[in-house]
Each structure stands twice: as C-alpha cells, then as structure tokens.
C-alpha cells in the first residue's frame, strides 16, 4: 500500500483557479491509476466544487481565497475545497432533475459532484463552506499503483 499523500493549495478567487484545479485533479487521478472516464468525472466534480466556492461562495472577491487539498491514502482519493463565503444549506438547493427545474439555467453543480464521486460532504465553516469529495479506488487501480511503485 502506498503511503498517504496530502498536498494543499491556497487559490485566488478567479476563473483561472477553477481551470488549474481541474487540471490538477486530472493529474492526481491519473497518478492514482484511474481510467480516463473516472478521471474525467473527478476533474468535473472538482471543477464544480471550485465554481461553487469561487462564484457562489467567494463571489470572485480578490480578498478571499479557496483552500484546495488533495489527499490519497491508498484506498481513496479525497479532495477538499473550502471557501470564505457566506455559506449555504445544501439541502435547500432544488433538485435539478425535478420536472419544474429541468429548464433552469443553474443549480446542477452539486448534483454533478454527487454523480461522479462516491461521497460528497458539506461542512459549514465560520465563514465559508467546505466540500469534501471522495472517490474510492477500485482494486484494478490499486494493482496499477502497486505496479508503478
């Protein structure tokens, strides 16, 4: 089993940070031995969490930052995105799949995170919101990791 690895970044509240985080997620998922489809899902979930933090949380405020952490413990890939915004109640976000919401322009980010990750957790900070995205590694991915170490 590989040793736990954790790396954190303090990101500016810009669109550039969203794109950077997405690229980093793809690289880290690739290093974890994940296939292209799984990598695409993880990087999309990370992109959506970053959009949530920067657009809805920090509202592009240059004085506010987003903390982005990637952690790999050999069994799971964990991504933590924490903003310094007003915070929100995830359960109050309307279901984007409900017929009356299908044609709404926004409100699909959390749904997409949940669709592509095994687990998505929200925690209220003071101030801000922390989103934890978890993807469990499959046995074939663990085999690939072992082979490359």
């Amino acid at each position, binding site marked *: 089993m590989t040793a736990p690895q954790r790396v954190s970044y303090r990101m500016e509240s810009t669109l550039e940070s969203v794109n950077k985080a997405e690229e980093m997620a793809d690289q880290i998922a690739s290093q974890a031995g994940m296939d292209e489809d799984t990598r695409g899902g993880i990087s999309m979930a990370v992109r959506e969490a970053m959009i949530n933090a920067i657009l809805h949380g920090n509202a592009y405020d240059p004085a506010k930052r987003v903390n982005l952490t990637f952690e790999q413990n050999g069994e799971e890939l964990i991504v933590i995105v924490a903003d310094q915004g007003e915070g929100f109640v995830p359960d109050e976000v309307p279901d984007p799949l409900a017929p009356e919401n*299908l044609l709404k322009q926004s409100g699909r980010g959390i749904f997409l995170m949940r669709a592509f990750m095994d687990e998505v957790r929200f925690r209220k900070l003071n101030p801000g919101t922390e989103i934890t995205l978890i993807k469990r590694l499959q046995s074939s991915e663990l085999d690939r990791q072992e082979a490359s170490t």
Partner: protein
Amino acid sequence: MSMKASTRQVDGVTIVDLSGRITLGEGSVVLRDTVKDLLGKGQKKILLNLGDVSYIDSSGIGELVSAFTSVRNQGGDLKLLNLTKKVHDLLQITKLYTVFDVKDDEAVAIAAFGK
C-alpha cells in the same frame, strides 16, 4: 482552450459549428452571444453542431438550456447535432437528453425543422 463558433446557412436553418469547451467564462459567453445575435437577426431555426465540443460543465449546460428556452420563447426551434460521448452522457444524467431534440445526421436534422 477557448471555444469557437462559426455559422452557416442550409435550407433556412442556421448551423452553428462549435468547437472547444463550453464552460464557465468565455465558452458560455460565446454561445450566449452567438444565439442572441442570431435571434436578433430573426434567425430562429438553429442547429448547434457539438461534434467538436470536447467538454461542457454545469455553466455550459445552463447556457444550452438558456439558448433552447430563448429560441423557443421567440417561436423558433433549437436542435443539437453530433454529441460526443462525454456530452451525450452528461445530458443523459441531467435528464436533458429528452428535452433537447438531438440528431446525429446533419441532413436529417435540417429536414426535421420542417418548412
């Protein structure tokens, strides 16, 4: 990578060939401005060719939905052409695949707009 949009006319239908990523920021804005411009010129039969669109995020999905409702509200029609697997899967899981009229053949798509 930025998004590009070019338009052409076939049998009264405006085909918008899109390439790149439809994501928060430039990609979404290009799509929004293109559709707004077409509606402003009275071109209400719009076929979005997504064959070279490699990626769409929630903002891009929102922009597609917004384009669809804008065109419909003005009495027009907007259809999608040539979805990549990624975009197809994304529209499936968001239940939008059945909302949009999706085609994989340009001639069939144009004929479907009717006269």
